[in-house]
């Protein structure tokens, strides 16, 4: 009886703790069923969007850990990336070389933007989220001023492709085809079964080596069940991919941009690494309690500034990866919703204003874009109206932030009540 009760309590706590994510998993599955999409098409679409957007979402993690909430000002990072693209496109440097130059150029711009953002947020402590949101709008105004008015008047620029025919201001869309489009994505691509096979083999190798090393150190006990699960999951994945390779499934036609995936992995590793350093410890300390950090002699303003600068640079690079995949840059629009969409994705993954992990970021990207892909079709199939599907899509983007913030608040209340009981 008691065990049953405990189990009930445990499941209840699990559901309350992961309420937001669970609701969106359910919505995603329902949406997929009602959309009538084929699995390969859906997976392909999802992969494209994951590789496109993950970096931007990962850029949000560090400020959350530093106690600065959700950094809506990654919009400024995206702008820094676009500034670099405009310059490099104007110079006519293309391909991988052009893309690397973009990454290099974006860094100083993003650092300056990040410094300014961080300085502002240090002056608006406790209201960072609304401050960064409004800062994004304000920066957008300045951005338009520079590229719509100053180009051709104050900043001399002669380029028929980029500049409007009047000679003043940049064109609304810039085509990156023949420029940096697919610069990274097309370096090396593998079909989905091959990618899955190599991932699973690498995972199995990694676990085996770790297991072998740990045997010598007598710590086998610490790594049994979890690793066993991973190992068998990898094995299943390998078997599945070998099976698919021998059929004429559509999966064999779909290809994954390996370098982009590696870049995402690298940023994940970077985040993990940072949190294990002195800087990371300072970040966490400031995030947990600024006052105590200050008393302990940590310069909390500087730490917060660093967090925002790192976040802005990552966002700039994220926007570069995003645009090289998209292939066209909407000069005045591409950056606008970056903050909103990334934050919505992070929140769906189960992160909150004060806690975020890499897993939550990646899961969030998957769930958010699942909804994005399936909702218009599902809306049409269920309600018989394409317009309704479109509406649902807009709802997913904006409503999600409000909804998940609200659900987090609700969750907190329930947890407070539960802790009283227990």
């Amino acid at each position, binding site marked *: 009886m008691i065990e049953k009760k405990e189990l009930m309590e445990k499941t209840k706590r699990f559901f309350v703790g992961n309420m937001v994510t669970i609701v969106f998993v359910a919505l995603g599955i329902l949406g997929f069923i009602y959309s009538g999409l084929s699995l390969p098409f859906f997976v392909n679409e999802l992969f494209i969007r994951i590789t496109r957007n993950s970096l931007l979402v990962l850029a949000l993690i560090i400020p959350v850990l530093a106690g600065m909430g959700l950094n809506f000002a990654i919009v400024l990072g995206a702008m820094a990336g676009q500034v670099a693209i405009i310059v490099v496109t104007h110079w006519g440097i293309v391909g991988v070389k052009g893309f690397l130059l973009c990454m290099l150029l974006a860094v100083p711009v993003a650092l300056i933007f990040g410094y300014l953002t961080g300085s502002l947020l240090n002056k608006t402590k406790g209201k960072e989220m609304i401050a960064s949101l409004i800062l994004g709008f304000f920066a957008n105004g300045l951005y338009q001023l520079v590229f719509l008015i100053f180009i051709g008047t104050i900043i001399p620029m002669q380029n028929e492709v980029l500049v409007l025919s009047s000679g003043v201001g940049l064109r609304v869309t810039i085509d990156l085809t023949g420029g940096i489009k697919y610069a990274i994505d097309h370096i090396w691509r593998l079909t989905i079964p091959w990618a899955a096979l190599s991932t699973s083999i690498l995972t199995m190798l990694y676990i085996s080596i770790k297991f072998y090393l740990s045997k010598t150190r007598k710590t086998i006990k610490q790594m049994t069940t979890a690793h066993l699960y991973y190992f068998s999951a990898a094995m299943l994945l390998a078997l599945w991919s070998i099976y698919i390779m021998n059929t004429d499934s559509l999966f064999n036609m779909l290809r994954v941009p390996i370098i982009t995936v590696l870049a995402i992995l690298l940023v994940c590793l970077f985040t993990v690494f940072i949190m*294990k350093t*002195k800087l990371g410890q*300072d970040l966490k*300390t400031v995030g947990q309690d600024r006052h105590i950090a200050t008393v302990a002699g*940590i310069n909390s303003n500087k730490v917060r500034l660093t967090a925002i600068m790192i976040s802005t640079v990552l966002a700039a690079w994220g926007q570069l990866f995003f645009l090289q995949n998209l292939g066209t840059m909407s000069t005045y629009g591409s950056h606008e919703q970056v903050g909103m969409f990334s934050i919505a994705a992070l929140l769906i993954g189960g992160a909150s204003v004060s806690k975020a992990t890499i897993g939550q970021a990646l899961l969030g990207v998957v769930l958010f874009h699942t909804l994005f892909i399936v909702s218009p079709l599902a809306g049409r199939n269920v309600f018989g109206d394409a317009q309704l599907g479109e509406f649902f899509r807009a709802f997913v983007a904006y409503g999600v932030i409000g909804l998940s913030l609200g659900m987090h608040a609700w969750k907190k209340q329930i947890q407070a009540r539960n802790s009283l009981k227990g």
Partner: protein
Amino acid sequence: MKNNDYILQMKKISKEYYGNRVLKGIDLSVKAGEIHAILGENGAGKSTLMNILFGMTVIHETGGYEGEIVLDGETINIKSPVEALDFGIGMVHQEFMLIPGYSITENIKLNREITKENIVSKIFGDKLKTLNLKEMSKDARKALDTLEMDIDEWVKVAGMPIGYMQFVEIAREIDKKNIKVLVFDEPTAVLTESEADNLLKAMVKIKESGIAILFITHRLDEVMEVADNITILRDGELVATKKNNETNVMELAELMVGRKIEKVARSKEKQDTAETILSINNLKVMMPGEEVKGLSLEVKAGEIFGIGGLAGQGKIGIANGIMGLYPTSGEITIEGEKLKLNNPQDALKKNIAFVSEDRRGMGLLLDTSIEMNIVITSIQNKGTFIKKFGLFTQINNKEIKAHASNMIKELDIRCRSEKQVTRRLSGGNQQKVCIARALTLEPTILFVSEPTRGIDVGAKKLVLDTLVKLNKELGMTIIMTSSELAELRSVCDKIAIISEGKVEGILSPDASDVDFGLMMAGEYKKMHNKGDELQ
């Protein structure tokens, strides 16, 4: 060692805040390996003296100080708290400087983490060195062992008992390698008696390792127990420096307040025939840390009823539950009428007033004037002090001012004017503002929780006198909850001792110390039940 073995000397320290002299030539000399107590009422200058020692910015922003600080034979000028740490001056804070989400190790090593090189840090600098958790826990273990704490160093601080947190804080200070002087700022204020005992033992151990300890406290018996030397401050002046074996508690108390302490006069002529004004049946209150678990109690009209017991046993939860501040179940009857539970408004309507134990958190609007603090509850719940203009109401400033200045005079609240904000008042005066507000409600039952917590000796007596006066002159029933048994015994007619969320027993204040002790420890019922069985 140089300079007669004194590790720290503060010579002729004076300090002025905007022309107001708060320290007048204080001399303080501390030897290595001694516990030096600093006694004084609030406002005597203890905190200013410590602020100077720590180089707090508030000192330098207001024109610095006069005098000389000599540490280990060298005159030093401390300009910031970080510099103070570098000089080897540490502080165990009154409010904990611990991060709940961190392990004990991480807290002990806060901003002093041991790091190791990696490839990235070689290029980008020290900030990117990785933490060496192994070495860190080794150091933490050593510090905990010194204090004889057998808790594991990787345990998270969140959820630990308060007594342990204090020890983690101390472990952090003694882990600092160059520590010479350690300041304990009222360390026992938040501890239970047994925890406080452990702390005092730990202090003795630290002193034996050659560190000088400055011990700031209100509790005279603790001073007598551990301090080697005692410096007493009053109104910014040095009153006396005494050796432990040359003085006693009475003398210290006298030196501190500058007037004799007498026992509060208590009226004896209470009859048992008075009616029951409050009866509590099977009360349960979900107050975290102070849970009440099925308590029954009866209080007669016109009594001063004391509620005592150790911290965490639930005595604080009773008044909070009756006032509807925490989820409550059970049955409460006031003057024959049932009280609606979980409903603060109904409690106020039944003429119950409450002076909270959490003065700064719950009791006061800290950035609001004294007069508004006094009348706000009455305005909300009784509709007094307002003028009505048809649908609209306006605050009646004249009436409020008159009432507030009357209260200020009655209760002797020391302030510049009734418009002063309450944040800057001393603890005792803040407490009096809370009492004034409760009185403005004209209650028949007054709950007072920990009325003298964090208040100096002089103000304590005034607060207690006030309560007795209210009881005598207005016939008000007062239910007073306090951790200080001596205080309860000096004013109450009856004292209920709470143990594990229930009444362990009710005693008269003249009952023996043994009975009180047994009840506090929760052993009284057990012993007497056993006695019954034997008979």
